[in-house]
């Protein structure tokens, strides 16, 4: 994490009070990931007794590769997430920032899981070091892992060279969300933006990622995930070119 500004992404509860130094100190790591305090993460327990459900940490990560979760159950969970968050914020910007923070916590795990699976399944596992292939892999692989389908388009901003967009015509997580008119600026896909931001951070492309509603007649839920890259990334891309 070499970017200069303090990055308040890891703590949902108090982001403003954190300094960048806090992130690196191991003492704060418990607030980052909030591991359950109690039952053991016991890796020596290789063969669990019959009838006892294995600890979630002992399960094979590859078994759930093709598993699906109920979209309805997730929709209710996400609805509660938004309601919970909305009770604790003062405005739309604040709400989006908190959803982004929650998504960031998901994205950190997504990037780790994907690179782990990539390593075990491929003979020549590859880590993207250039931005465009990384963006392509987010558009295809991250989307498929998280949402079960690739995103619909990637665009590059005409005006700003540091801006890229991932477009989803019908984001599954906001399919049932109907934002009231007085909050029309709000995009609950900020959660997705947080996931993208974490993945980009994890791959070494620090960026600010935001979500915007860009409805069309055919796709009223169309959403644009806007990626604004850190200056350092553009400089490195330029240096790698030669």
């Amino acid at each position, binding site marked *: 994490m070499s970017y200069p500004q303090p990055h308040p992404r890891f703590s949902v509860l108090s982001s403003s009070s954190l300094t960048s130094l806090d992130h690196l100190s191991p003492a704060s790591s418990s607030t980052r990931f909030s591991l359950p305090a109690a039952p053991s993460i016991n890796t020596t327990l290789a063969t669990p007794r019959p009838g006892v459900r294995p600890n979630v940490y002992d399960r094979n990560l590859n078994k759930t590769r093709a598993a699906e979760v109920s979209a309805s159950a997730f929709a209710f969970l996400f609805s509660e997430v938004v309601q919970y968050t909305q009770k604790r914020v003062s405005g739309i910007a604040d709400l989006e920032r908190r959803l982004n923070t929650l998504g960031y916590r998901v994205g950190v795990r997504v990037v780790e899981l994907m690179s782990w699976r990539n390593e075990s399944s491929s003979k020549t596992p590859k880590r993207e070091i250039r931005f465009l292939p990384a963006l392509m892999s987010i558009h295809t692989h991250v989307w498929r892992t998280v949402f079960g389908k690739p995103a619909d388009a990637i665009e590059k901003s005409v005006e700003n060279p540091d801006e890229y967009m991932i477009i989803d015509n019908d984001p599954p997580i906001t399919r*049932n969300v109907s934002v009231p008119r007085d909050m029309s600026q709000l995009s609950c896909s900020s959660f997705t933006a947080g996931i993208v931001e974490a993945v980009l951070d994890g791959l070494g492309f620090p960026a600010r990622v935001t979500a915007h509603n860009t409805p069309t007649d055919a796709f009223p839920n169309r959403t644009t995930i806007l990626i604004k890259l850190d200056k350092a990334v553009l400089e490195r891309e330029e240096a790698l070119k030669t």
Partner: protein
Amino acid sequence: MTIFGLWVINKAGGLVYQRNFGDGLPSQTSNEYLVLAGTLHGIHAITSRLSPTGSGSGAQVIEGESFKMTIFLTPTGTKFVLLTSPIEPTAETVLQKVYEIYADAVMKNPFHTPEMPIRSEAFDTRIAALIK
């Protein structure tokens, strides 16, 4: 074979959604609709206790000379009421689909407060698509 209107009544008897289709029904003020819904709620509560074999589901169909009222009660006490012409064989299936849309577009929407009037664009559009 016409659908005139759809009401959604919450478990307390309040009208949370009301919409007319076509112009088969004489228009009423919103207050009159609230009174109608409240009355229907009361009638329904009484009919559900009339059953000779313990408590039943209550009135399901109320028929008039020129219209039919089909009532669908969910396990949570929300009532969907469809006003149709007397011969409307699809009323029950339409109500099932309305319930499905309600579950998707209203109950999964984080900006909906339970038991409060339904203000969801998605619900409106999907209902309009279902009942043309």
